[in-house]
């Protein structure tokens, strides 16, 4: 039997599968998640009943809020970008990692590689956001979103700092964050966020 046609069909089929697969994969990785509008001033958010009550207000000290899902693999890239950027931060900066935790889970649920890495960043603390209360108040729906509030409590940066879903490396957003930390800006930089959803559909509707 002549195997040439079979081989050719196999070649075409596998090539098509590979092409479709790469397109799908790239499309998935480059599609940002839905994000809401973060409060322009930190004072607009009620924090007294949250784990961030002690963090704000902090006059004169910029605060970087990193919202993350402890189990999201894509957020590892966000942590890596932060690790690389941190030595280049000039002013004193407080980093607060807000770890999502389902309401019916213990605090130990947040233990993960991402949590460990974030807690090792200089001047950082990890707070638990049980039930996603903080996420909803800050309008954060995608893991890896970063909010920068300057020393006067104004929102200076909102969005992701990875170029791609789960991809580390320099990107326009990360460089913008670095620039806004080191120098004061009046406007707010907004960037897409790539990562897992912070809240389930039921939590979001509540």
């Amino acid at each position: 039997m002549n195997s040439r046609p079979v081989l050719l069909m196999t070649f075409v089929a596998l090539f098509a599968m590979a092409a479709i697969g790469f397109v799908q994969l790239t499309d998935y990785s480059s599609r940002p998640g839905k994000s809401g509008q973060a409060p322009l001033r930190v004072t607009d958010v009620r924090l007294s009943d949250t784990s961030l009550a002690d963090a704000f207000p902090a006059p004169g000290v910029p605060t970087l809020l990193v919202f993350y899902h402890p189990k999201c693999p894509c957020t590892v890239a966000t942590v890596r970008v932060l690790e690389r950027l941190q030595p280049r931060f000039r002013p004193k900066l407080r980093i607060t990692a807000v770890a999502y935790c389902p309401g019916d889970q213990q605090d130990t649920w947040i233990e993960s590689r991402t949590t460990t890495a974030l807690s090792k960043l200089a001047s950082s603390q990890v707070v638990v956001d049980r039930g996603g209360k903080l996420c909803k108040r800050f309008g954060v729906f995608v893991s890896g979103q970063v909010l920068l509030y300057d020393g006067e409590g104004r929102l200076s940066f909102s969005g992701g700092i990875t170029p791609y879903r789960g991809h580390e490396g320099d990107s326009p957003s990360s460089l913008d964050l670095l620039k806004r930390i080191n120098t004061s800006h009046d406007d707010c930089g907004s960037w897409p966020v790539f990562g897992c959803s912070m809240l389930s559909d039921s939590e979001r509707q509540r």
Partner: protein
Amino acid sequence: MWMSNATTVLDADDQPRADALFRAQQSLIHHRTDRLFAALMVIQWLAGIAAALWISPRTWSGAISQPHLHVWAAILLGGAITALPVLLAWKRPGHGLTRHVIAVGQMLTSALLIHLTGGRIETHFHIFGSLAFLACYRDWRVLCTATIVVAADHGLRGWLWPESVYGVIAGAPLRLVEHSGWVVFEDIFLIVTIRQSLADMRRNADHQAELESTNSRIEAEVTRRTEELRQAMDETARASRQLIDANKALEEQNKELDQFTYVASHDLQEPVRKLVSFSRLLEQDIDGDLNEDAKRDLQFIVDAAKRMRTLVQALLELSRVGRSAMKHDPVDLNRCINEALEALDLKIHETGAVITRDEFPVVIGDQTMLTQLFQNLVSNALKFTEEATPEIHLTATAEDDHWTLGVRDNGIGMKSEYAERIFQPFQRLHNRGEYEGTGIGLSICKKTVQRHCGEIWVESDIGRGAHFRFTLPVAEIDTPETDRDESEPGAELELATC
């Protein structure tokens, strides 16, 4: 095809063989590398799945999770990338299409692994490692295919999703040139290396072809010479067989001749004896009645009859020496010489001959024949002398495996050209009137020596005497220690015979 810069200059006949060897070596490399890549790609596929399961096992939405898309991509997309190269490596190893598909698959695997590991810079080394590995094919076209895949991947994704490749939206074309440049940079070195490697392979193929050609020529020459040698050996064997047959025929003829000689001489004895007897009776019967002429004629008849009788007896003796049963006993030649000299005692006293002798050994042979041998030779030495007193010396010299014995005299000697002739029957160098004899004595000596596996010859010159020499084998005496009794002269000896 890359041209060889080898210094080997091949014959036109060797060039096709060199090309075949070169292609065979290339095919071997292609097959081997295909198999290696088939195994590598399966391992890479499994490694990609493992990496996906480790790095991004699940995707989350709050507390709810499901398998991450990377896991499915590692399994399905990785499987699709791996399947065709492995299939071709299995079904069509060594084929040009196979290695180009493998190159495509390997580069796509690099892209997938980079994606699965989150674009880690370390994973990009997979591309450069793969290029080096693809260079094992020693086919620069494969590197071109791989490079085109890398460039196409970057170009396409850089165009559609620039941030996914370069992390930035702007400047994608320049990044494409930069990224491709590094790949081309490695390609240049690899292609140069491939070219040198191919040149080496070409040189080796040329040398191999030349060596095979030389070996073939040598084998052909060896075969030809072996055949010639075999033919020569066959010819020699045939000649040897013919010689053996001729010898057998000659021996048969000699036996017949000996038989004839014996029968003739034996049967002639009786008529000759009667002729002599009746000649004498006739001489007595008519004594005084014959005139002088008749008496002289009758005397001639009587003398001729006597001489005929002597010749017949000598011929019979020669025949007996050649035919008679011969003993092979240990013989002390000193004893033989003593007996020979006793037999010649009268002649020795008449001539006043002075006879000296060496110490003679014990040999294997027939004592009677050897005694006769010495008697003949000494008698000869006594006979052929002039006025001078005969001085005879019996010589014995030990050689490696034989004794050289002889009888040397100071007689008249002879010309060296007669050295062979005198051993033939009835060959005489002098008239009967000068020296008596039948001319058969030395023939008997020769026959005796030959039957003792020896040779006889004479060393002589006119006026310088003669030295008759002959050889006899050394007796190998094997004396059993248990039975040996050195004090007993008649101890039985076990002696080798010729």
